[in-house]
């Protein structure tokens, strides 16, 4: 089996105070509807002045869906495995008190071999490394110890805010 050239993979690192524990619990990410991740094929998580050590592969995206019991139940009880994961993510989101129209991103689970493990990257700057999302090739994340090692990476805050 050929391994994908993961070091070239574009990672969208999102600000994730609540999304990081949510990903660890559900293997998914819920955010505002129609948020764009450009060409990123992977998602990383930044919170508590750290880029966390798991970089998940984006498996499936539902750009816009009402987060309610009707949709969550229909999908979580679907015979289709991808729909089922979307529905389970939505049910978890509802349980966490999320609501409204959202985007659901199904990710490779934390223990899935498709999820890359890197060293945690600390941020020592005075302000947050990102309050929205930034793009970094996976290879650079793997080599970095501090966010200052990623100094010229692309802050996608202005372009990709979705609605």
């Amino acid at each position: 089996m050929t391994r994908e050239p993961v070091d070239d993979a574009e990672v969208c690192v999102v600000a994730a105070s609540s999304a990081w524990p949510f990903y660890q619990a559900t293997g998914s990410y819920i955010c505002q509807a129609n948020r764009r991740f450009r060409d990123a094929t992977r998602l990383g998580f930044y919170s508590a002045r750290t880029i966390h050590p798991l970089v998940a592969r984006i498996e499936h995206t539902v750009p816009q869906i009402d987060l309610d019991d009707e949709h969550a139940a229909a999908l979580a009880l679907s015979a289709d495995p991808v729909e089922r994961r979307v529905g389970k993510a939505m049910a978890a989101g509802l349980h966490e008190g999320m609501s409204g129209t959202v985007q659901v991103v199904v990710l490779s689970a934390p223990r899935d071999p498709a999820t890359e493990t890197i060293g945690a990257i600390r941020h020592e700057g005075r302000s947050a490394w990102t309050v929205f999302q930034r793009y970094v090739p996976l290879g650079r994340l793997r080599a970095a110890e501090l966010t200052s090692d990623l100094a010229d990476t692309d802050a996608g805050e202005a372009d990709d805010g979705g609605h």
Partner: protein
Amino acid sequence: MVTDQQIADRRAEVAAWYADARHRYLRTESLVTRMVRRALRDAGNESVKVESRVKSPESLVAKAVRLRDDGTFKYADPRAEITDLLGVRALVPLRTELAAMTRLLEDLFVVVEKSDLREGTAEDVPGYQSTHLLVRLRPDTLADLDFHGLGDPVFEIQARTILQHAWASLQHDLMYKTERPPGPAIRRRLIALAGLLELAEREFILVRHDHGEAYPDEPPDDAGTDGAEHPAAALVTQLFPGSGSTHRAWLDEVESVLGQLGLADEDAVRSELGDWAGRAEAVAAAVRATEPWASPPYLLDVLLRLALDEDYLARRTGAAVSEPALSAHRAERDDLLARLDPEDR
């Protein structure tokens, strides 16, 4: 660069227009708030508080002559661009109720623009959270006699929770109504307060949820929550006692799953479950360890997946099952079995 004369002209022009137009907004305010309150009451949602205001002439004129940094007017056409002449605010107790109320508002009006100013926009910085809808009246509403002569007003509706509103109000007063703007230390404390209130709201949600679990026999107070009368309700209550009330949507869906599996009644389900029926509570505990949201209908579906194993998918779809679907089914089943006590497997 705008001259003093141009500012004076604009003040006079906007004031004259609004002296005539404001009464239409006042009438619209009265009709719209009544309409929203009635719709909420009809939907069984009487805990929503509806507030409204029509902009004062002084406030509108001050806004209409605001300048940009380059000295030009901020609003090229204030009559068209200032859309908060009428503002309505709907406050719900907790954010778990926001989606239903927002949907109701979206049905009631034509939405011109919707913005969710919520935590997802800056996820590691607590702060202002609210859903803003820019709306106009639906054509069938405008055709109503009461609404004749109002034109086609566009107005703003803000939907938020009581605690989100408390923070926004206090923060707004400090940021914009004091003589000097607050410095970084004060702003930092405001952000901390937003985080504190967000945590308080989460705790309220959990308290409400846990209270519901502790008193499953109390009549449900949510129109979408229904236990007793649904055909599948009795079965899931027997299999998973003490699980609290269940949203009707989950019961509807599991009923549909039972139909696809050809299980027409309780006896048929129990027969198919076999020994797994006796292990329902152990399975529920194992599932809820990682999926605390798991409702009894979802748990029944999990139990059927365990009992029927690979036949489950074939029977539901009535067709050959794809390898990825089968593989996902096996992985989920193996993962759950590994978490059960050996005697419950």
